[in-house]
Every structure is written in structure tokens, then in C-alpha cells.
């Protein structure tokens, strides 16, 4: 097992299905997929639609806008790598397009975050310059 105490904040393992998502993040774009059969958007990346199992969903750039669906302020880090960030906001973001995603809300007083708050995507740079989608007040 890896020892989280000595690791930096994680960066994702990229595979063929998720590559367009992470490539988009490096360009500063939040990417979502849309089902070819039903037309409904979804997260996270898959090679088929979770609605009707139709193949090859369409990749598209999301507006990057959303609202806080629920949240908490984390005071005890899950791993040592997150210690310097505490207290930080861990939130579920409902994108304007519909799908939800887990994220942090950055660049604000953690105590100021509320359900229904408008947020927009921003990007956190991690080790090696890798960019991770995050959110901040809109």
C-alpha cells in the first residue's frame, strides 16, 4: 500500500475514456458527455450512455456554471497532503446542464458557502502542472 503521508495531493490516472475530460481541464475547459440516444448530459466519463447504453457519447464543453447542491467544511484532512488546505469546502456541485459532481469550493471564506450558492469552474494546478477542475463563487 502507498503511504498517503508522504504523497503529494493526488493527480488522476488517465485512461482512454477519461482522456477528453482531462485534456479539456488542461485547456481550462470543463467537459461533459451527452447521450446520443436520449440527448441527456452526464458525468463521469464513459464509453456508453448510462441512460440507454448507446455508444460513443458526444463530448462537449460545459458552461462551467453551477450551484452548490450540498457541502461541508472539512477540518480534519483525509490524507496528510490535504492538511495545508484545512479548513476546506467539500461540495457537490449541480452543473447548469444538470449533472452533479464532487468538488471543492475555492477562493472564498469556507464559512460563507451555502446550498444554492452560484459557482463557476476554476482550475487548481497540482504537481507537474496538472490542472484539476474546481469551483469558486460565481
Amino acid at each position, binding site marked *: *500500500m502507498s503511504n*498517503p503521508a508522504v504523497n503529494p495531493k*493526488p493527480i*488522476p*490516472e*488517465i*485512461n482512454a*475514456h*477519461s482522456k477528453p*475530460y482531462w485534456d479539456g481541464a488542461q485547456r481550462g475547459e470543463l467537459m461533459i458527455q451527452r447521450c446520443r440516444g436520449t440527448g*441527456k448530459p*452526464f*458525468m*463521469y*466519463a464513459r464509453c456508453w450512455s*448510462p441512460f440507454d447504453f448507446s455508444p460513443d457519447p458526444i463530448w462537449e464543453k460545459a458552461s462551467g456554471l453551477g450551484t452548490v*447542491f*450540498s*457541502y*461541508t*467544511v*472539512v*477540518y*480534519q*484532512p*483525509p490524507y496528510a497532503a*490535504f492538511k495545508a488546505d484545512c*479548513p*476546506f469546502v*467539500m*461540495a*457537490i456541485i*449541480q452543473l447548469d446542464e*444538470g*449533472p*452533479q*459532481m*464532487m*468538488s*471543492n469550493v475555492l477562493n472564498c471564506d469556507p464559512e460563507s458557502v451555502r*446550498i*444554492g450558492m452560484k459557482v463557476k469552474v476554476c482550475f487548481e494546478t497540482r504537481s507537474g502542472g496538472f490542472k*484539476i477542475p474546481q469551483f469558486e463563487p460565481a
Partner: protein
Amino acid sequence: MSSGIRDKVAILGMGCSRFGERWDMGAEELMVESFTEALTDAGIGREQVQAAWLGSCMDEVNIGKSALPASMALRLNNIPVTRVENYCATGTEAFRGAVYAVASGACDIALAIGVEKLKDTGYGGLPGLDVGSMPPLWWPNLSAPGVFAQVASAYMNRYKVPRDVLKRALAEISAKSHANGAKNPKAHLRNPVSCDTIMASPMIAEPLGLFDCCGVSDGSAAAIVTTPEIARSLGKHPDQMVTVKALQLALSNGSEGGYNDWDGSYIHTTRVAAKRAYAEAGITRPRDEISMFEVHDCFSITELVTMEDLSLSSDGGAIKDVMDGFYNADGKIPCQIDGGLKCFGHPIGASGIRMVYEMYLQLLGRAGERQLKNPRYGLTHNLGGFPHQNVVGISIVGRYQ
């Protein structure tokens, strides 16, 4: 057409190790501790067990893969032994395997045993799970207290509950479990704690403080099951027989987390499994008919919303019931009479069976200082995973009728 599990399977014997920091024993020895108690209780020899299910969750830090550790530690008679894992609902999954085996008629006597040895990790929570390559897209930075704290935020938002009102009710939930655990000689934590102390404890993930979170433990629990007819032939009087009234499992399918069908303030799968379990047991008014229950109180907020998800409290009504003492040891439907995950402890693979163990003891009048008066039905609720993506196992047990 399925007729369900009701009264088809009897519990012949049960055992449970002491939970806690068991530096003196390995996982194999802990299995022997619960198994020998269950064998003695059942009044059979180990050669009479015809099939077994082993529940263990964290194979990376525990006994490893396969069911061999159970077969070898318990010196079983070269019988089929199957290892199951379903997050923190692993114990109920093992129980389900044994119960279904007997109900099918494929074997006469089956064993379910769960074990976990977690304190060796030196960490207060659960070690990280190997989750594959996709979750970083949609649950980055997740912590277990964090995702359950999000349920608290959504609950406050839905019912317009002031933060201090919820915090106080959550403290009452933990204080009640500590009061109950103090009376349980096998419990990990046996110290009464006041609500003031609980509310003053360090914040983990707002609004959950240290005492709103259960820890992890070393421990094992076992159940030996058979049919009511065989139990009778082995000398169990029908008046002293506990049977399975319902056993249900419900798993998330992704809709809660991704597609806005859920408002985040409850556990969807608990509601699904509870509805099926009540129908299977023939229970139409759970608040009047359930005598006691054990829920998966990994966090105090989980216990609070579960009271509503099980239709024991009305939606939005759990806080009032908690503050009225409805779920206390001297209340109408005692919850966590053995201390729950919070104080009895949480050795993952054993927890679901431990819950059934307490209901079994209570139904047979063998719960000592914690004994409740004339319980009829006991319910167990075992939750694995996260609020938006989880496994829920529910059992209902009662006297044979």
C-alpha cells in the same frame, strides 16, 4: 412467484467476540472466539456445519483474499466456504449467503462469520479502498466524514432546521449510544459521555465533530442457521427460537449521485430496502410493530436520517423523536441498545452480524443489564459506501410463530 424468506430459517446459535483493540489476537483467533461461542450456543459440533460464508472487507490489511483463512482457522470439514465483500454491509452479506443456502434446501446447517482487524493500521478511520481509475472524475477529495456531513447540510436545508438544533440532536444520539455501550461487556467504548462534551469536541467536517463519528475496531461475529424443523429436532423449543422474518439488500445504481433524482438529505436505498423488508415480514405499521433496532451509525447524522428512512420517524420528525427520548433504552423503540457502531465498535466484516447478535440476545432474554421488555421484532440496518452510492442490508428477526 417468490414467497420471501419469512420463517424459513432459524438461528441455531450465535457468537460475538469482544470488540476493541485486540492486540492479543489475530483475525484467525478472533474468528475462533465468535465461532466457539456460536457452536456452544447451537449445541452442535463443527463437523455439522455444511457450508459457510466469510465476510471480510479490507483484504489488504486483514486476512487476505479467499475464504481459506476461515476454513483453516475454524478447521471446517472441507466444506464450501465463500468469502464475500460488500463495503461496510459485508457482514449482512455473509449472513444472507448462509440464510439463503438453508432456505433453498441445499444444506441443513450453514455458518456466517464476519471478521475484521483494523487497529493495526494505527489510523482512526478506514484505510483507503482501491477504487479504480474513474472516481477521481467525480469524487475527488472525498472523505467519509465529509460526504456524510453533506447529508447534514442537505437535511438542514430541506427542513429549515437551525444548525444548533441539529447539532444538539446529533449529540443526544451519540450520548445515548455511549450510555448503552457502557452496559455492554463486549463493547469497545464503555464510557458514558455528556452532550456538552460531545458538542465541544473537535470539528471533523462541519457539523460533525469527533463524537459524531464512529471509530474502527477488531472483532468477529458468527451466526449458525438452519430450518425451524431441524432446530426443533436438535432440541430448540419453538418458544426459544428466533427466525429470520426479512432479509433485503438494495444497491445504488448511480441515479442518486449523478442525475438530480435525489436531494441529498436521506439514503435512497435504505427506503427501498426497508419497504421490501416490511412487506416480506408482513409488517404494515413499523413504528408500532418494531420493538428495537440497530442502525449503521457510522456518523450520528446517518442514524438520524435512517430513523426516517426506516419509516420509524416521519420525514423531518427524527429530531423531535430523539429529543423526546423515543429511541433511548427506556423509550418506545430503543436504538443501538448494544452501543451501536459508535460504542460496540465497527470491525467492518463483523458489524452486520453483530447487529443481528444483539437482536437475537434481546429476543431470547439473554441481554443482561441491557435487556428490554418483551421485544417482538428486531431490525438491523447495515450501510456500506457513501450517501450517494451504497449498499444497504436490512434484516428483521423475531420469535418463531
